[in-house]
């Protein structure tokens, strides 16, 4: 009771290819909180705080995780990729561009998490069926679109990668 919060933890994270020091933090901070509030990487979004919605999805050692469920200080030796590490501002990735073109974005709050999940999906399965897209992205909730245009966007990327020989 009435105990003040100890803001005295110091550690380093490896984020988007850079070493990022974290200073004067509280040990209980989630990776999502540290990315957003201490490192200024605001693209990862918090929407459920329980790992149910996928809005905070990032890659930790190439694995798609909900950053709201990861203790930041536990990720010190791991490679973290956030939405900011996907493509430079102004030069969207093929997945990002397809989301814009296909009408897969409305409010956009779920979008960064879905972009991370889609890149991960297409790494695993270059040419997914519609059913595989639904199954693999089902950990990401969107409240605006009803998912139809998102599926369309993912399919467009798969087709264009196949045509251009990337897949």
């Amino acid at each position: 009771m009435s105990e003040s919060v100890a803001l005295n933890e110091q550690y380093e994270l490896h984020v988007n290819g850079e070493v990022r020091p974290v200073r004067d933090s509280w040990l209980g901070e989630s990776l999502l909180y540290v990315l957003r509030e201490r490192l200024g990487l605001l693209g990862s979004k918090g929407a459920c705080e329980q790992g149910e919605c996928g809005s905070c999805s990032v890659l930790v050692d190439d694995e798609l995780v909900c950053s709201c469920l990861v203790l930041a200080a536990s990720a010190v030796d791991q490679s973290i990729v956030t939405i900011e590490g996907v493509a430079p501002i102004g030069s969207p990735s093929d997945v990002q561009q397809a989301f814009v073109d296909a009408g897969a974005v409305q409010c956009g709050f779920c979008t960064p998490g879905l972009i991370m999940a889609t890149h991960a999906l297409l790494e695993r399965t270059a040419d997914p069926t519609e059913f595989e897209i639904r199954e693999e992205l089902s950990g990401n909730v969107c409240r605006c679109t009803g998912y139809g245009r998102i599926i369309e966007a993912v399919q467009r990327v798969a087709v264009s990668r196949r045509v251009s020989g990337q897949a």
Partner: protein
Amino acid sequence: MSSVTGERISTGRIGDSISRPDGTPKVQGSYAFSSDLSAENCLWGATLRSPHPSARIMSIDISGAYRIAGVEAVITAADIPGSPTYGLISSDQPVFASDVVRYVGEPIAAVAADHPETCRRALAAIVVVYEVLEPLVDPERAIDGSHPDIHPDGNVIRRQRIVCGDPDIVGDVVVEDNYEIGMQDQAFLGLEAAMALPDDDGGGVSLYVATQWLHEDQKQIAACLGVPLSKVRLTLGGVGGAFGAREDISLQVHTCLLALRTGRPVRIHYSREESFLGHVHRHPVRIWMRHHATSDGRLVKVEARMVFDGGAYASTSSAVLINGVTHAQGPYRCENAVVDGYAVRTNNLPCGAMRGFGVVQACFAHEGQMDKLAAACGIDPVEIRLLNAMVTGDKLITGQIIENVAPVARCIRETAALPLPDEPVGGHDHDPMRLPGGAGRTADSSHIVRGIGFAVAIKNLMYSETFDDYSTARCRLSDGVVTLKFATSEVGQGFITIAGQIARSVLGFDNVVIDSIDTDIGSAGSTSASRQTWMSGGAVNAACIKVRDLLFAAVAVSHDVDPSSLTVDGGDIVDAAGVFRISALEAASGLSFDETVEYHHTPTEDLDENGQGNCHTAFAFVAHRAVVDVDPELGLVKVIQIATAQDVGRALNPLSVLGQIEGGIAQGLGLAVMEEIIMANGHVRNPSFTDYLLPTFLDMPSVIASLIEEPDPIAPLGAKGVGEPPTISSTPAIVAAIRDAIGKPLNRVPVRPTDIIGLSAFPSI
């Protein structure tokens, strides 16, 4: 601060499926939502909430919170300089409860501190002593007077009757039933978030907030702060969805009070659990309906009794009720009606606006009735709807004449004509993952039954009952660049996209910039009631036309042509004879124009004691057909396909319209089979995304949509609002399909597995 500010829309006229101007920042994670805003020296705020649905506050001791290092302020009702209450229609909701609490989650105090965890500990250190009271949770007890008033304004928020034609007439065929709709949450993903910056002199505040209606917030905040409107400036923070839940005040006043108290910027972010408690929801409703018809299926009379549980505070309950009772007939001709509706106060969570606003509830009941009537008359469900479909010029049960384009029969026919899914139960590949239950692999495909259901809806557009929900837009043209300014909340629906399309079509310039969305211009009204395409689209259109006419006048003088003969053709200005042509850019060189316009819809009337009056502004229509697979043994449902034809007037951006249709249907599907805030004696049992289920990629089927484009001459651009109709009749269509599959009545949504199996008795939870 809003990231929609200053973004350039490059191409696209009315009717083009161009992509959103904020799309690239949103996919790259650089779009600034209200929860992404911060400022130098900014504090965190947090709110202490009641754990009881009904209790007397005996004492509040905040001293423990102040003993925690990092806590900068603790405020209660005693610290409110202005009005202690707020509210959209009546000011009945306390900023902080001081004497009694009336629902679980009611704010009692707020703190500002250096870290969210410090805030959490500070809240835990505030000691509130309650005398717990028996909550009023049964809406019928609010009506029958058997529970003492829980608020000085009484337990009945509003009662409205409608009596029309011959109330005593009896049809050849009579069907009746009870229906119940559970409490749905808007569940936008972008949680409530705001940041307030105090003025240097402490006399005012700037608030960056995700809201549906900046000017209404401004009015309520200024009243609570006890300052003039000019001392409260609002800017739209990026909005992560709304669906009605951002129409009321939630954290706005608390954030401003903390900023003014500390003299520092303060931001509040709700958690998901807090969000469930901290905004209004879709009203749970109980409806009794009795339909009378001729033996050949023509509607003779509709009787209904509707009870809307408004929860602890009024919010928009009285307007939701009016929508419910005035839409009781559905999109069907009916000359006689007796409808009685109540919106009541209980100690359940406060309810207010959610997409569909009272019509969702009415439609679930009237569509259940139409199917019963079809069965009783031995007529196909689609045929009985066609037989009764209303048309332009028909009189509603309120006495109002439908003046809009009303392609009800066309919506029904085109929906019915859309192809049914060709795959059998389990799909052509017999993948068990496609069965109800999915990855659970629980269903045996030989036991699965398929059903088809149909439903149709009418929805009012804009505000009703004399409310003048005008919209303001400013158009500036300078050096060939068009700058649009309005206070219209962009919540994800895409108004900024069509605003640019309208400006480009009217003026012929490609470069359109959307200025900051804030209170530096007049009100745009709320982003709700499917009204912004019509109202703010109408305002933008009118402002652009004014600028265009000034440009024409200037061209006429400089080129010696008749201004009345000029029109815009693509990027050129041409005369009617086709002789004169000049590019709009060249014509506007060196010229500047600046025009601001208010757009008002036609006035409406109040309803009289018999529910008669021209209370609504306009109407739109839609039909839905659902195909479902049901596992009757485990009570699982998989929706296979939704087909829809929607009356959109004119699709200003077909891709954007499709997004509204698919997204709205997903919310209708949620209400049909999974979404409900479960209340138990005033306590919320499932305030999380773990326990409140939302449709995922696996729950939402493919949608086949047909846009019915019959431009409405009453609408400024021929375009009707499209946001709400998809959410309305999708729910009853899905439930009708489940009934069709298993042959059970299923008069309550969401339909639960136990309802399908038959283990639970209506209407218990």
